[in-house]
């Protein structure tokens, strides 16, 4: 292969058709309330880890729901599980449970 001095950018698009939604469906089956997220961002705003890093819980779980698993486990590992997000979620989502569930499903334990 020739090195032309650049590489073909990988598309940023979330391709639902190509993504394997198996795990995301499993996650939603175990915790249907995650679908009730209205993207208000309270969780991320209050997040202890999010105030120290770029960790964005809302974004990561939304991407996981769309079948974008790349890096989600590593991102979720930034969470300290302190539970503030659960206290502020206006939709009463069990956010700590979500973190653990996503890690379990994507980390295979």
């Amino acid at each position: 292969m020739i090195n032309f001095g650049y590489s073909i950018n990988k598309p940023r698009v979330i391709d639902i058709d190509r993504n394997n939604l198996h795990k995301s469906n499993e996650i939603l089956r175990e915790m249907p309330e995650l679908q009730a997220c209205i993207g208000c961002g309270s969780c991320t705003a209050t997040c202890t880890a999010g105030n120290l890093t770029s960790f964005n819980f809302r974004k990561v779980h939304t991407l996981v729901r769309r079948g974008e698993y790349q890096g989600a486990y590593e991102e979720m590992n930034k969470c300290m599980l302190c539970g503030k997000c659960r206290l502020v979620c206006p939709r009463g989502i069990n956010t700590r449970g979500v973190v653990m569930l996503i890690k379990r499903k994507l980390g295979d334990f």
Partner: protein
Amino acid sequence: MKHVIVIGGGIAGMQCAAELARGGIRVTVLEKQSDTGGKLRNWHKLFPSLTPAGEVLGGLNHTLRRLPNIDVRTECEAAELSPRRVVLATGEELECDAVVVATGFTLFDARIKEEYGYGIYDNVITSADLEEMFNTGKVSTTSGAAPRRIAFLHCVGSRDEKVCQRHCSKVCCVTGVKQAMEMKELFPAADVFNFYMDIRMFGPGYEEMYREAQQRCNIHFVRGRISEVSPTIDGRLQIKAEDTLTGRPLKIGVDMLVLLIGMRANDMNAVLEQRCGLERQTSGFMRPRDQFLHNTESNVAGIFYAGAVTAPKSVGESLNEGTAAARGVIEYLAAKECTDNSTIDE
């Protein structure tokens, strides 16, 4: 006996006519279509209670037929009006003591948003088409197959300057949620995606319904407006949007795309403005005398508004306005009689 002409035999007009008749007034309802009921005739079920539209309409029709002094003239269009006179499209002139304009709205023509492919690709339908399908009981793709993935697009012809529809049509959000749930009910194995810009759940029970759609029905809500629709090689539709909550473009193949079309002001409203001295808002809907205390009155004494002629409204709101307008008419006529009499006395 006083005579009031109600223009438009939709739900607001029907409710208004019934209230007027109860108040001892002779009413003539002018209806463009072959039957009363307006847009509700083609609707299947109403949010958020899923009450069949026919139930509401049946009740209204029953009342209308039962009450005396109501004359419903179908296939009859008004061309010009003043507080004392309505000229029909045929040229016929009707005398009256007051007029209620309950002409409602026009459904947005989804073909104008050609990037969504309505009228171009198979299986791109509007929310109104879907209600028809519900009514006929034949919900399927054009090929007759059960859709495996369905997308709803909110705000088609609403909040869109590109099609001169700056206003919010108010009811499409909850209609989208309702129809998504109905589709999920019909096709439990299907994935349903709702693409929205905002979800505005303004009414009682709407937010609860939304939550139910999300959590119980597992309907995916994606915040982002679809930018374009294209056909795929296997005869499906490919949709592109941005998942704005993740900041990433998103594409997805669907078997059916439902466009939640908004409410457009009637073209006739311009005529009302030009020929009848009535005021219009920038949205094209008629302007009530004021938003709060005289919401069902026009700027011309003796001409009243009821229902979606002044702004997009839900069924319940339109019905309420029908009643409110009738009340206003009755008061207006009583007051007028008073002054007329005192003039005679003098």
